[in-house]
């Protein structure tokens, strides 16, 4: 039980080691992918309560991570400094992956939090139980 409960923090530590190795060896894209993995891992840790998060929430977070990593890779691939500039929405395509892709995609985390708040993050019954037993009088 304890090992299972510590699985996610251990994974976070392992990904942190990988990120350190990537950064110190100058592999920027690998560092970026590790950062996305850490972000999703931390979200899963924060959303974890008995029985939570649901499979639907986990799927949404994994889809977010996949899209994020794809945009990171595209940002690098679409940057061609030796060629005349092409634009996407008025800006270089690589930069567009950040401004038009990653930035709005990031709002997914807030959307997931809001959409699952009553059912998973803080159901009314759990809140009432906690307050009735532990709130200061």
């Amino acid at each position, binding site marked *: 039980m*304890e090992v299972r409960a*510590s699985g*996610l*923090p*251990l994974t*976070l*530590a392992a990904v*942190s080691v990988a*990120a*350190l190795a990537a*950064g*110190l*060896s*100058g592999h920027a894209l690998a*560092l*970026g992918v590790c950062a996305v993995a*850490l*972000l999703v891992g*931390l*979200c899963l*840790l*924060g959303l974890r*309560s*008995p029985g939570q998060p649901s499979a639907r929430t986990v799927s949404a977070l994994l889809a977010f991570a996949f899209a994020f990593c794809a945009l990171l890779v595209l*940002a*690098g691939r*679409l*940057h061609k*400094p030796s060629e005349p*500039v092409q*634009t996407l*929405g*008025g*800006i*270089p395509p*690589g*930069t567009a992956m*950040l*401004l038009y892709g*990653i*930035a*709005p*995609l*990031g*709002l*997914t*985390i*807030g*959307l997931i*939090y*809001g959409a699952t*708040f*009553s059912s998973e*993050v*803080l159901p009314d019954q759990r*809140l009432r139980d*906690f307050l009735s*037993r*532990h709130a*200061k009088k």
Partner: protein
Amino acid sequence: MPSADSGLIISCVVGYLGICAAIGVWAMRRTASAADFFLAGKSLGPMVVVMASISSVMSGFGFVGGPGLVYESGSSSLWMAFVCAFSLPTTYVLTGKRLRLLVEARPILTLPEAVSARYGGTLPALAMSLAIFLGVIGYLGTQVLAIGTVLQAVLGIDLLTALAIGLGVLAFYSIAGGIVAGVYTDLFQGVLMLGAAIAVLAQCLKVGGGLESMTQTLWAMDPEYFGPWGTRGDLAALSWMLLFGLGAAGQPHFITKLMMLKDVRRLRWSALATGSSYLVLATLWMGVGLAMRTVVARGDHPELGNPDLAAPTFLLHYTPELLAGLVFAGLLAAIMSTADSFLNLGAAAVVRDVPMAVLGRPLKAELFWSRVATGCLLLLSTLFALYMESLIALLGTFGWGTFAAAIVPSICIGLNWKRATGQACVASIGTSIALNFTLEMSARNGLSLLPPGLAVGAVALLASTVVFVLVSLATRPRKLAPDIDALMDV
């Protein structure tokens, strides 16, 4: 050095300083206890919390330092600004309900008290107090530099005089009103800047001749500048993404705002509102820096002597007077309200957290000593700012990294993992402080121990996370108090 000769701009700024003083007087009447001084009596609605959060995170760092860093190195720092769309909501996920409910269960006003409740013992709370104190001194320097730069530009006065005026008003309302003054100034400033950011972005596009035209100019100047990574390269950009994407949850001036919310259920859509509002403000960070670089690249404006002057210069030369006046007022509000938050945190560390950890009780006449400590911190950070020489945003990055590496493991992971231990908390905070200061100081003295571009704060955050998890697993966890145990299951 640009300076304002417009009566309208100066009137807006002076008018704003008057409003700040008025808020200080009003807040002083609402501040009757230490709980009011540190947590605004836990009485804030979601709108105030959202606005206060984005204002304090953006601060002088983003409004003045951000455009300066974009002006200097193009897209690199956009990886700091735009990742806040997810990093700020992630903070709600990690700490929102647990910190807010902790305040329901225990008489907690500060983060070290939260650490003490979670881990027990004296050392974890002391270590957290030390980290916050050091971070406050460093990060407050960012705000002090920013306030000097803005007032110097607007009033055309020397730096010392500018600092004296700005800090005089700041001292009055933060000493008088504590965090109540800060959050309501944040609200005023946040609303003002959200509107102004859109207007300024439109002005940036107009001055630059549209996005397409700006891109052509900047690409001809240097294809890397407006490429995805900017001139500092991919390692700098993506290590900043890591530091700012994960590190927001370790910013005490942000997460303590979540403890002030009146009703925990109002967290629900606050996360999304915080992320999306910040995105709007981030356009100002980007737009001003790019527009200023564009006019310089076209030869329409001489090269700036200091990149940090990008925002004041653009506002004074390329923005309608009324808009410039409003934005300058907003800039000052951002800087001063954030400085107020830091003064509040620092005062709490000195007056409340250390005595609680060592003596087991707060000082007598706590409110009085909080105000004295606030004044002393103000003087200390001013001396620090005058001593340091760095771009505003880079100094801010150092402060951000110090907080992130110390607080993310011990608070964000620790409140969500029962196996975490007090020894791990102390070890990770020690690691974060040692790495941040050693790597930063060695780099400043010409001995860089990291690959070029790799952010010191990112390395410290990763290392402190590893130390936290491994030491937790290697040491024996204490039995949690029933309320803390229940809190971590909610």
